[in-house]
């Protein structure tokens, strides 16, 4: 087993393909990124680029039609991909890292009180008694800003925003060092969204939790981002520090994606990206963005390597 003590999470050459009748969907296709403790990385990309699949690959929540699933996921230096399913369930999922799935607020169990639902992972994964688990749930409710008398309510008695907070409390109750949030606010109202981001910031500060935030909402993602990773057609094409990335993205796709964001406090006209991402079944052997890239040149017919530039990483021939 390899160890590496600096990083909370290190993902190397992660691959997750799905089998279908028309071929393999290469949803996660050789990803590398890492995350320090008490930091948040946002994974940004258009619909269908593989963001949810990445979350599933990291947490090993796999559908039945998995094709290739390979690579390394180091959590605190331990390669958890090498774990058996049983070891993974006991030591990694929930206790090491947990997931707030896409549309979590609509997937709470309608017939169980929300307090009991939040307490359950603590009983199962921490092995604590019911009283103590309820007590933990109560503490989590306070962290996410849900009144504790809501513990005895059912999901339908709560607004969407409150249910989303409950889903976050559930991911938090086992005290994982990392929480993966898949589109945590995209179905919520603006003010509710802003409230939830305040909650996430506070959790990060008070509990030292790290986050992987998956979203296509670029503007809102900056509320939590320490690091940014841009995903395109199953791959990460740029990673870097948020403070360096937002003012000056490097990859042409990242650049165009940023230029497409309408801004309330600036006057520049947003631009759109013409064309569509490639099918994840028939991927080009060129740079995957080449067919839409205004900067392409001869070299782009080949798959670009990941290039390091002043601590930033970009998968583009322009920087070779």
């Amino acid at each position, binding site marked *: 087993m390899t160890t590496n003590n600096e990083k909370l999470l290190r993902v190397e050459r992660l691959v997750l393909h799905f089998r279908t009748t028309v071929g393999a969907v290469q949803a996660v296709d050789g990803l590398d990124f890492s995350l320090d403790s008490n930091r948040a990385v946002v994974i940004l990309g258009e619909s269908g680029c593989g963001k949810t699949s990445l979350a599933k690959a990291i947490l090993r929540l796999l559908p039945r039609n998995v094709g290739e699933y390979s690579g390394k996921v180091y959590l605190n230096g331990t390669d958890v991909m090498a774990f058996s399913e049983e070891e993974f369930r006991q030591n990694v999922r929930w206790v090491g890292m947990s997931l707030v799935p896409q549309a979590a607020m609509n997937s709470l169990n309608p017939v169980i009180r929300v307090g009991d639902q939040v307490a359950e992972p603590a009983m199962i994964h921490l092995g604590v008694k019911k009283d103590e688990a309820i007590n933990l749930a109560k503490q989590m409710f306070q962290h996410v800003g849900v009144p504790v008398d809501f513990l005895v309510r059912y999901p339908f008695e709560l607004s969407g925003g409150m249910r989303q907070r409950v889903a976050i409390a559930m991911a938090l109750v086992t005290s994982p060092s990392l929480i993966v949030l898949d589109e945590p606010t995209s179905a919520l109202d603006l*003010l509710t969204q802003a409230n939830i981001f305040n909650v996430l910031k506070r959790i990060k500060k008070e509990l030292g939790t790290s986050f992987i935030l998956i979203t296509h909402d670029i503007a809102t993602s900056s509320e939590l981002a320490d690091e940014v990773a841009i995903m395109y057609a199953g791959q990460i094409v740029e990673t870097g520090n*948020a403070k360096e990335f937002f003012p000056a993205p490097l990859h042409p796709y990242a650049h165009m994606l940023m230029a497409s964001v309408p801004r*309330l406090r600036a006057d520049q006209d947003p631009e759109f990206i013409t064309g569509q991402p490639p099918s994840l079944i028939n991927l080009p052997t060129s740079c995957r963005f080449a067919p839409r890239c205004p900067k392409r040149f001869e070299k782009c017919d080949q798959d670009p390597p990941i290039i390091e530039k002043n601590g930033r990483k970009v998968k583009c021939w322009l920087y070779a």
Partner: protein
Amino acid sequence: MADTKLATRIETGVDERKVLLSIQDLRVWFELRRFGFGVAGYVRAVDGVSFDLHHGEAIAVVGESGCGKSSLMKTILGLYRPREGKVTFDDQTISDMGRKGLNWYRAQVGYIQQDPYGALPPFMSLQRILDEPLVIGGVHNKDERIARIHKVMGEVKMHPVEDFLQKFPHMLSGGQQQRAVIARAMIREPKLIVADEPVSMLDASVRVEILKLLRGLQETHNLSFIYITHDLSTVKYFSERIMVMYAGRLVEKGPISKILKNPLHPYTSALMAATSDPDAKNADSYKEVPPGEPPSLVKPPAGCRFHPRCSRIIQGLCDQQDPPEFEPEPNHQVQCWLYQ
């Protein structure tokens, strides 16, 4: 755009063009039925709304989920009957129109409904989807219909037209489906387009493309336009005036640059503060957000409907009396006691 009049309108709200659509004290309530006991109450989705829309003017209605935006628009389209108040189009009141009048009216107004994915009938080709409104509208000459379908497909940039006309909705991407919905709204050459969250279901990169398309059509055809959205960051690319809706009311109305520079209503300020621009500094601080959630429209709070969440509340006034509309500066109205 060398349109100085447009610039003036955006700055001052002065609009000399004729009024096309006029809404007066509109109320749209939905009955809450209780089994065996008749009506248990009303959802006051639209509760006293007034505004004018001029020929060729583009306005935005901004507000959060459930505040009544779609109900207001559906009433303007004649799909819901108002409980009170009236809608006047080209000086004719739509509730007084007979069937013939309503048919004429429906041809004057194009509707782009919320949720593009449910908007197109799945078993019809685009050709049929676009042909039908023309047949219903009494365009009996087939060649003319074909010519108009080709023209509108070109306008929404669906090339090559022949290929697209044979396609069914499920064969199109989200952005293409939305273009088809726009083509259908334009096919009868309306004077007014109502677009209800036309881009909220689309990916960021496609959103801008569709908004620009709509803006282009609005300008070339000198259309009046109502753009409904919850996203304040898109309105300035698109409209001359904003109306902010909260709990069934238009709490602030005014020219776009005035509102974006100097929002008057505490709710408008809160919406602006909650809207993020992509900026890494955002992560360094908490946002000031009003607590709580929008009120029930069945039993709205007494006084100002925003008072339970308002940080600038005047105790004894805001929680008791409904604020009327004040006009602290020309063409800029606000329903808030701070401006009495």
